[in-house]
């Protein structure tokens, strides 16, 4: 080629030119929004987690690792014993991950068929279904969670119905159990699973299923080998959208669960609420939560790029 050799990165990004010069300026509103509302608060939390706590909330500007130390190690009541691992918070974290994973699984099991069903309806009934799915979300989450509690408590309509029909003799205790928390999380985040999967299935070309069927695959194999792999990005998006807020949720565990179902969200919430709080500790717990979420997302991103590289 006689033309001058283009810079290396010009080849990577065909739109590169758009982003230099004026393009960067046009993007500045988004940068400001991201900076002020996203990066700044996280940065503040990071700083706070390394400061000294002030009783009755707030921080003293003295750098210390005390918050992280408190999270990980037990140094006795007066802080003078040799450190042992502090299991309380680790247990809460493990439980939260478990609860969030379980909620994600349930949302997936119910959400996938729901999304598939909606996506395969006629255009008109599709919008009706989507509307019905999103209706409850016009009501505040707190109110919905409280209503859920009224529904499932010992004297609530569910138990009354079951007793009046003679299925049970005495009320089933649902409130304050893991099951109740699961129910709350499931109910809160189901649409976050349904909507991305719906979007993926709606774009799915059903001729692919026909082609698989034509090539001697039964319906189950077609689902497993063709439909699910093709709509996988929607499934993963749904799982992330359910898992991440479930992990930090505090309304459902607070209102529907009890001491045994305490989750990270509630732990963090407590540190910033009222006078009993410990801001650096709350900030440290938030940072640990955030890093765990980021690790999960990075694994996902890594796998995506690898899958794409494999396609090359």
């Amino acid at each position, binding site marked *: 080629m006689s033309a001058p050799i283009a810079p290396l990165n010009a080849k990577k990004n065909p739109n590169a030119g758009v982003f230099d010069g004026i393009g960067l300026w046009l993007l500045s509103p988004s940068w400001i929004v991201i900076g002020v509302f996203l990066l700044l608060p996280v940065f503040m939390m990071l700083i706070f987690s390394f400061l000294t706590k002030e009783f009755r909330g707030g921080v003293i500007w003295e750098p210390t690792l005390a918050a992280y130390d408190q999270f990980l190690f037990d140094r006795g009541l007066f802080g003078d014993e040799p450190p042992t691992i502090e299991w309380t918070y680790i247990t809460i974290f493990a439980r939260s991950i478990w609860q969030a994973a379980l909620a994600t699984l349930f949302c997936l099991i119910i959400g996938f068929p729901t999304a598939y069903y909606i996506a395969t309806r006629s255009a008109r009934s599709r919008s009706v279904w989507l509307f019905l799915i999103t209706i409850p979300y016009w009501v505040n989450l707190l109110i919905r969670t409280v209503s859920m509690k009224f529904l499932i408590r010992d004297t609530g309509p569910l138990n009354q119905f079951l007793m009046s029909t003679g299925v049970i003799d005495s009320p089933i205790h649902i409130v304050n159990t893991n099951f109740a928390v699961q129910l709350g999380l499931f109910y809160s985040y189901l649409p976050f699973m349904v909507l991305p999967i719906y979007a993926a299935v709606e774009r799915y070309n059903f001729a692919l299923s026909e082609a*698989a069927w034509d090539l001697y695959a039964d319906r189950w194999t077609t689902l497993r080998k063709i439909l699910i792999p*093709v709509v996988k990005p929607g499934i993963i998006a749904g799982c992330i959208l359910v898992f991440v807020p479930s992990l930090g949720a505090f309304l459902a565990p607070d209102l529907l669960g009890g001491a045994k179902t305490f989750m990270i969200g509630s732990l963090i919430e407590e540190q910033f609420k009222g006078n009993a709080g410990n801001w650096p500790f709350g900030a440290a717990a938030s940072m640990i939560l955030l890093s765990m979420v980021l690790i999960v997302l990075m694994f996902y991103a890594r796998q995506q790029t690898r899958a794409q590289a494999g*396609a090359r």
Partner: protein
Amino acid sequence: MTDSSPLALEVSHAVKIYGALPNAVKALNDVSIDVANNEFFTLLGPSGCGKTTLLRMIAGFETITEGSIRLFGENIENLPANKRPVNTVFQQYALFPHMTVLQNVAFGLTMLGKSDREANGIATRMLDMVQLGEFSNRKPTQLSGGQQQRVALARALAPSPKLLLLDEPLSALDLKLRHAMRVELKQIQEELGITFIFVTHDQEEALTMSDRIAVMSNGELQQIGTGREIYEEPKNKFVADFIGETNLLTTQVESIQGANAVCVVGNHTPLECASAGGISIGDTGIISIRPERITLTKPGSDATGSNLTGTVKRFIYLGTDTQCMVELDDGTEIHVRVQNAHDSATDFDVGERASIKIDQGAARLLVN
């Protein structure tokens, strides 16, 4: 067609009705076709005539409302698509986007229970056959339209189906590629000895590839025959008009001479027409005359021809030919096609009088 071997496919009195009564659509009405083993059989017809419906019924994607489908003598209309030894090449290819080209082609074989090694071996051979051996590790999206088309073909052929169905497989390709693929498809079909049922609305495509063609219109079969039969002996006006170009003249039967009818055209000029029979004197009908079987001569120069005359109205240059519009003395307009090598049409000027000669046997009388 040999009589001893069973027919590859027999569709008998197939009816297809979509939907329930108030807005039911009758897509096929009493369609029967017989396809011989190793035949390249084409379903040809305008958009919406039911070609895809018939094909999807044979594949097993649509149920048959009435009638039966037999594959090598066996009734298959109650078998689901995945139990029929029939494969389809889809119009938009429908390649699995998450699989490599090789995995796509091996899919059917794996589903039939072949080991991975065997499946990949056959798939590789199929890809070599369609000249895509070096692309086996690519994803379908990294191929051109023509290459995707070949993958779709290889994928459908890999399980060695008894019957291959192709729904307008070439319609998404550009002209050059389409022409090349016609030859290639025909070659592959002859090489593998698999019966092909090919759907198209392109009559040229049908004529160049098919052993036999079924012309359909409005859910009904119009005519089945070789390309030559359909072109030269169309059974009705629809077929004559749909396949190639033709001049259609309304007429009345004056007398009958054996299989031929003498009809009146122009200003009371008698014209001998071939006909399928079943006509009587006084019937009205339509005469079809292909434009390339008409020649123009200077008036009075040729006494042997008919004394049909007209005025040259317009010339349209078409590359290899010139099309000439002539207005007969009774006002009907006919098209005449002249090969440019002859340059006889260019002997005429617009507005000049010409005597019109119709080749022996070129006029066909169609009843309807």
